């Protein structure tokens, strides 16, 4: 990871106490999309917690990412209902068309592909979420259209 442009974060909304670390991490992730080494360094200085300790917290939670995500995030549901209705082939098709594996981001930074356990939209299986929008009963043809719409 290179941090050519280093951003100065402002954590002053929080008292420098350990209990506010996760909230501050969420702020960083909201603004940057991920937790960079530089952010951990600044958090470490502000909260007086070692970087390894912060890394331990960040790596514990699945919600935090260490890599800059793509501009669009596609989440493929692999819950039971979606699995039964063929979300496996949706994921395989996405992996093939995007040329990446789940958990990765396309080299041009356009799309990140994620797999989630259940979206709670079992009636719409198989379901995927693109950015914030849920698509239900997705077919391979529909998938192609969705991909074409991403810029």
């Amino acid at each position, binding site marked *: 990871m290179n941090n050519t442009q280093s951003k100065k974060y402002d954590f002053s909304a929080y008292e420098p106490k350990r209990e506010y670390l996760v909230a501050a991490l969420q702020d960083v992730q909201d603004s940057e999309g991920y937790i960079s*080494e530089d952010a951990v360094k600044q958090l470490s200085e502000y909260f007086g917690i070692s970087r390894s300790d912060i890394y331990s917290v960040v790596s514990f939670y699945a919600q935090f990412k260490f890599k800059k995500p793509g501009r669009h995030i596609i989440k493929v549901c692999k819950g039971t209902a979606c699995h039964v209705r063929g979300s496996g082939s949706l994921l395989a098709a996405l992996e093939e068309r995007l040329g990446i594996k789940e958990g990765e981001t396309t080299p041009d930074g356009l799309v990140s592909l994620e797999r989630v356990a259940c979206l709670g939209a079992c009636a719409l299986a198989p379901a995927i979420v693109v950015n914030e929008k849920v698509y239900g009963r997705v077919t391979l043809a529909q998938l192609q259209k969705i991909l074409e719409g991403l810029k």
Partner: protein
Amino acid sequence: MEKIHLTIDGVQIEANKGDTVLQAARNAGLFIPSLCAHKELSPYGACRLCVVEIDNVRGTPTSCTTPAADGMVVRTNTDQLNTQRRRTLELMMSGHTSACFNCDSREDCEAVKPTPAKAGVSTRCGTCSNRSDCSLRKVSLGNFTRDIGLPPIYDPSKVEREDPFIDRDHNLCILCGICVRTCEKVHNGKGAIAIANRGAKARVSSAFGKEWNFEECLFCGACIDECPTGCLTDRWSRWFGKEDGVVESVCPLCPEKCKINLRMKNGRLIGVEKTSLNPDAQLCALGRFGYAQILNAQGRMPRPYAMKDGEMIPSDFGEALARAAEIFEANAGKILIALPETAADSAKKAASALAKKFGADLEFAKFDATSLSENSVKNIENKKYAAAFVAGDYITEGLAQNIANFISFDFFRNKAQRSAQVVFAGAFEDELKTVKKLEGQVALSTLLEALAQKFSLDFGGENLPQISAFKSAKTDKSAVAHAFFGHLVADMVPDFKAFGLPFTRDCEDKKAKSGYEVLEAKTLAPNFHSIKIKAPDMAKYAKPGQFAILMANEKSERSPFTIIDWNEKEGWVQFVLEEVGRSSAELGMLKKGDFLAAASGPLGTPFDFSPFKAGQKALLMGGCYGIAAVYPVARKLKELGVKTTIAIEASTAFMLFFESELKTVADEFIVMTRDGTKGSKGGCSNVYEARGAEFDAAVAVGCVFMMMQCSRHASKTPISLCSLNPIMVDGTGMCGACRVSLGGDTKFACVDGPFFDLGKVDFNELAKRRTAYSLLEIDAMPRHLHSNGGCHK
């Protein structure tokens, strides 16, 4: 302190209010097993071994996190608790290399191999440097009856050896968190390591999983000292094993003078430890890792020398002292005395008194200086001094030539000594009280005191010099003292190059530039490597059962290896190497395209196939390197029409290799593992014992213990053979190192062997002879970063 009373296992005990149940039990001398509890660290509750039952408390709470209360009734040793502990340990063992715990022959094996065998990586207790001091082993041996049901998972990527001083093998980690908590405590809440990720991926890690040398770790070594398993080890000292004594001392390497504990073994300093987990007692990398390495570094002076008729002649202390005294008396007013400011107080006082008495210039060199002050250098250049006493490597050879009567004191050889009149061989002050020093070595304080006494000087009241300002390396690893007595620290302890310390001795590029080309190199199992080398002559003459002596580089030891396979037409020969010590590690690190400096073979008497006839049955047994070594013999037997049964054994499933190759030459193929994780549980000797009578011949190749076990059943087959592996030097019958005894006869394994009558070999003698050089082998181990060939960035 308020007292409370509780009952543990029917025993009424008194405890302090505020104690945990575990503390109360331990203070009362009662035993509850535990791995993550540490008396200087706060309760953690990770290992789940200290579970207890308490009346009116639900479930089985961990005693280390449960406060003791008045009237509590606690049970620690019920069937349910013990079952629970066994299952907890079993889960722990599935992530730990546990084969030895499950092995039925563990006690016998450890009687033959009382110390763990050196190995590239630890794959079981038998190859773990921490065996003698392992808490996990102690707890497990008390709880297990060889019934671990889960196979161990091994991941080669969990071995991390890219950092200075510290070897880490997370295959041995049980995530007790002691290292993390120790680091946090020692560094005032800001630890350099933490447990990253979760579940099966959890691992002790620095931020972003980087090398520990990257930023936060200060290399105080506290984590290593507290690690209850063999996961974290001091690369340099690990194979010395557990110390036989600890001596309190003070670190002499910088003006900070930290209290240290010297770890001693057989009168030798094998390591340095902090005195407690208090932040004040923490050590810097130099004290923790450097001191023992400096004291044991190569190039120590064994005895004093004195110039006689233009030649340096070995001398003794009395004579050297008399010469030094003469020089002082004869050159009064024209003398320089120089010693480091970190020298012992009595040495400095005696030096001051001598300087006064003889009107000498006195310099206390800065603790990390590599030369004297500009002023002193100028004076020497201007030939101001007719005599000088310099303790340490502070002046160049050229400069020393300007001093007619130069007296040198140093622990190590230095170039200025060549133009000295008298050279004293230095002993460290610690070597006076604890370490076995050589007769001719003398501590600086002893020397200067003796000199002062010779002139009846009273030096007790002399003032001590002001010590230069210094930055503590406890909180900043770049502040580690660069030099000691004028010698660069990184020259003596090469891992400090990774800290950016200056050095003059670049690491040697030992890689052979020509010789026998490596055509293919691959790792078969942890510590086992296969290499194919280009050696047309060897390929042309090789016969089954023969071996060759290989050397990775010109300075490698000559080690014999069985020729596994060869191809005359293509001109290659294949070997399987087991990584044990330095030379085999050097061979194991070779990659395709590299060269072996030397390969001489084929050597030894080929396997005698003349007694074998088609239709006969042979049992071939291989363990460790022997798994591959039985291959060429089995192939030839099969060609002759002999029915081959190949039995191979390994400690555990992940240590098996060569199975598909062996199947091609086996009519029957049997896999044995000592922990029962693949095939049947046990070793080849079990197969021999049960079925030996079916066979016309049996051949055993493996470690001494495996062959010794097989030898007990040698009478079951008309022919029984083994391939012996003693220490070998020339391989042609000249040196006698490979002498073995067979029923009273003396044979040489290199020319008479390697195959001998299994039933006649004196295996106890063989085991003893094989370990004759074990201490020297440890000294030769590759113990610095990039010590094989590749130089540090």
